[in-house]
């Protein structure tokens, strides 16, 4: 750390090098948690979204029920049920599952993943069902079977339509991750709460953490704008 920054930090009552490190560790935890849950959530959501569009109700029904349950209840409640509920199961402490669920990180990861997967499933499903009929008919005319149609025509065009809605989901997930701090995870919000309670300075502690979230959001918005221009290149007017 450059000397003048260290010097300025030492004059400051709250934002010392130590608290900055606490915020940094919190930021790493937040990014870690949100990134993993989004990646796993997306991987789960794509097949679920396809199943959700299948006509057979025995296939699409369970997926509908899952998305309904997880979109119909607050994430905080889901986290409470997974974190505290699992610990109440008789004898779970003796199984190997406890190695995973003893730490607060994995129950939070599970709750966040299930939640974001439910929303993402519905976003992708919406994009799939709005595929223009003409595209599918043309694919059929070319003799493509269902699998090839999905892979070459429906999913790529659905991805283009889903990306804007999905960027919202990513940002919501980042902000929703703040509730991880209620199950003792020291994420960005957890760090802010600890520092607030140490110095009784709510404005300093929370405004700083708000700026951290805004910086992360800015990076996400920027990345998605790049992705959108890339995916929607064909829609741009041809100009000289």
């Amino acid at each position, binding site marked *: 750390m450059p000397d003048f920054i260290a010097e300025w930090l030492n004059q400051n009552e709250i934002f010392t090098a130590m608290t900055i490190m606490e915020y940094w560790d919190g930021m790493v935890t937040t990014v870690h948690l949100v990134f993993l849950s989004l990646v796993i959530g997306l991987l789960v959501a794509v097949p679920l979204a396809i199943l959700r569009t299948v006509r057979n109700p025995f296939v699409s029904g369970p997926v509908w029920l899952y998305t309904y349950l997880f979109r119909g209840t607050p994430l905080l409640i889901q986290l409470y049920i997974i974190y*505290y509920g699992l*610990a*109440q199961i008789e004898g779970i*402490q003796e199984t190997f599952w*406890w190695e995973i669920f*003893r730490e*607060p990180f994995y129950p939070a990861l599970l709750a966040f993943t299930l939640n974001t997967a439910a929303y993402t499933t519905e976003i992708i499903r919406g994009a799939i069902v709005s595929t223009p009929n003409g595209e599918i008919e043309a694919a059929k005319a070319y003799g493509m079977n269902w699998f090839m149609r999905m892979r070459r025509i429906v999913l790529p065009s659905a991805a283009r339509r889903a990306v804007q809605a999905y960027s919202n989901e990513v940002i919501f997930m980042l902000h929703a991750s703040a509730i991880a701090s*209620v199950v*003792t995870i020291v994420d960005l919000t957890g760090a802010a*709460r*600890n520092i607030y*309670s*140490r110095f*009784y300075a709510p404005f300093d502690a929370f405004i700083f953490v708000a700026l951290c979230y805004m910086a992360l959001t800015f990076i996400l918005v920027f990345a998605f704008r790049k992705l959108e221009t890339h995916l929607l290149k064909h829609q741009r007017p041809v100009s000289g």
Partner: protein
Amino acid sequence: MKKMIFAASCALALIAGSAQAQERDLRIAFDVPYAPFEYKDENGNLTGFEVELAEAMCEEMNANCEFVIQAWDGMIPGLLARKFDLIMSSMSITPERAERVLFSEPYYNTPGGWFGPESFNTDVTDMDAMAGKTVGVQRGTTMDTYVTENMGGIVTIKRYTTADDMVLDLEGQRLDVVFVDYPVGEETVLSKEGFKEVGEPVKLGQGVGVAMRQRDTEVAEEVNAALRTLKEDGTYDTIMQKYFAYDIKM
């Protein structure tokens, strides 16, 4: 003759003086219920450790006391607005509060208590043995500060907003031990099957004092003198033993 008049006026002044002391009216505020410090018994009478201590104090001060019920949020504003003259409602002495009110000497301090499952047999003061253990505290309490300063880096500290959440994690074996305000631990942990006290209680913080308006220095002196007498002549101990099985005297 002159001497006579002087003596008479001296005597008069003395009588007047003592009469004035006897007539001092004090209104003391409590926030109920906060058992066992202040609460209403089944007949609706105000009682508890602090209430009885206040009664003894008033007697010692020869003051005419009236007890007032005031919700916690309005405590300090009510005092400053002269709705009452003393607060004896478990108000911990902190530098922030001391800027607005005048505190007497502390009259009690509940210790922090170590609680854990029956199977926990580690000495909590032995840092080598405690290394790697997970300790639960309530965020921002004196217990949190104590563990952070003395055991940070040795044990894993988990901070909770409410004692209930913390006890749930103790039951779920996510925590090895909790360090919590003794009466709270007594009520939430010890009341459950399979848990015990696992270490000596630790006295923390500056304790609880009587809060008064900054300008009432005269009252403060009398309060301090009365509290000192009660602590010395055994009255304090008698009242304390009625409500507590452990020492909170300060």
